[in-house]
């Protein structure tokens, strides 16, 4: 038996290998990845390491001896160059071929590269190595421009500003976090950041990047360093070249199988079919881990559809953003402010007036409760929440 090959060494890949063993799999399991560091937690890169530096004991996904103990072959610094569907094998950069019975693609996502003149002067953050370099660069800067007001851009911007540097965020859209947060909450996040010293220039396109700053449709912004945080794209080139169905990621069905039987995709790279037949691609730790667990069960013989509640968090300086559910397509949003500003919960309702997502700023207890409210097939209506004055604890009891 050739066993199971997992391409990737990130959250989804490592969890899948671990869950396969938890579920009693005795297959040969091989993880292949281009990076040379032991598998690590990615969230701290933008939230912390880029500014504080990467500690010698960075946050590992599993203890160093976990892989050997569990008979999982971890091959670092091994980039896969091609997937050969007919021969059921992957081809490595050094032409080595490895056969598989089942293949799991967990290649993740990478920062979007904008087509702007001078983009080579901009820095983007993907790996632990990038965080090491960025931290060194930030050691000799005083002013920083961040292109993109999404999660990663804002996390870096807030961390750099907290370290005492002057930071300007340039956003092409009218509002920051436009793709991921409801407008009323995004406005509150922006205000809190402005109070904290971040400068925003929105509705403004970047025309060119220079070593001394960025030219925009609104004038020149001086910066010793330009950081690009303009979203991520799925790393699906291998799948595309192999002829798998792709388009905003690798298309997979309810059990995370691609258009080729026996080949699966999980995590950031997977564009999966939801229980309502829509296609979604999430870039989150929760999604990576939960898909990995579902797939491990399927590979161990218990066919499992992926159906977990999505949740996400973003630490931006003193702002803790947390989301539960999917606010895509919400038709009504009710924002409730807490006592300790900035503290807000935004309740999102679908067309049937059922609660479909809750986004919170600095309100972790509400986040936790909303995950409870949204899971287990529970239906909470707007009328019900209104009658409880949007106090979630009350609403959940009645």
């Amino acid at each position: 038996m050739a066993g199971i090959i997992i391409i990737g060494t990130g959250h989804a890949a490592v969890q899948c290998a671990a869950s396969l063993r938890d579920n009693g799999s005795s297959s040969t399991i091989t993880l292949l990845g281009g990076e040379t560091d032991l598998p690590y937690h990615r969230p701290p890169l933008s939230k912390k390491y880029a500014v504080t530096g990467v500690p010698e004991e960075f946050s590992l996904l599993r203890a160093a001896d976990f892989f050997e103990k569990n008979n999982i072959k971890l091959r670092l610094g091994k980039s896969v160059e091609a997937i050969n569907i007919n021969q059921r094998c992957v081809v490595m950069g050094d032409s080595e071929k490895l056969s598989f019975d089942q293949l799991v693609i967990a290649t993740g996502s990478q920062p979007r590269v904008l087509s702007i003149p001078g983009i080579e002067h901009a820095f983007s953050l993907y790996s632990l190595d990038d965080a090491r370099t960025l931290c060194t660069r930030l050691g000799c800067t005083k002013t920083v421009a961040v292109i993109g007001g999404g999660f990663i851009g804002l996390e870096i911007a807030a961390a750099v500003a907290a370290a005492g540097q002057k930071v300007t965020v340039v956003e092409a859209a009218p509002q920051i976090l436009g793709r991921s947060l409801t407008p009323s909450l995004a406005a509150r996040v922006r205000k809190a950041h402005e109070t904290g010293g971040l400068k925003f220039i929105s509705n403004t396109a970047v025309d060119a990047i220079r070593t001394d700053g960025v030219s925009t449709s609104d004038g020149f912004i001086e910066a010793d360093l330009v950081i690009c945080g303009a979203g991520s794209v799925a790393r699906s080139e291998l799948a595309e070249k192999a002829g798998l169905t792709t388009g905003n990621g690798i298309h997979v069905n309810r059990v995370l199988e691609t258009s080729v039987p026996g080949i699966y995709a999980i995590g950031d790279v997977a564009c999966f079919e939801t229980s309502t037949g829509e296609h979604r691609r999430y870039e989150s730790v929760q999604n990576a881990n939960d898909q990995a667990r579902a797939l491990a069960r399927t590979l161990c013989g218990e066919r499992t559809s992926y159906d977990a509640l999505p949740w996400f968090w973003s630490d931006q300086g003193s702002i803790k953003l947390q989301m539960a559910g999917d606010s895509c397509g919400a038709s009504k949003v009710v924002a409730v402010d807490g006592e300790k500003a900035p503290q807000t919960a935004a309740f999102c309702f679908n067309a049937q007036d059922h609660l479909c997502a809750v986004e919170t700023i600095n309100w972790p207890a509400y986040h936790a409760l909303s995950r409870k409210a949204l899971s287990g097939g529970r239906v909470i209506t707007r009328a019900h929440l209104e009658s409880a004055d949007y106090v979630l604890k009350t609403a959940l009891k009645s």
Partner: protein
Amino acid sequence: MPQICFKQNDGSSVTVEANAGQTLMHEAMRHGIVGIIGECGGSCMCATCHIHLKDPGKFGLGGISEMEETMLELEGEDITADSRLACQIEITPQLDGLIVTVASTDD
């Protein structure tokens, strides 16, 4: 360095030399303590580092935050009065001799 003893689900114990300044979760994971997963990396977003502490007051450990308490209620199994999330406990020299029991995991 403070010595901390982890009691694992299978009845075995592991005593580690912990680094002050790190969290209990980080040190447990570094030493491969079984049952401490730390899925969210220490952001108090999951409860996969659920532990039980013996005599926390004796070691100068403060109370539990609302965030930690709610997350435990939401995700943790077998919650007791001495339940904590290891990611929310910073290691100090005072913790020398602390006994940590890893919560049972069925998942």
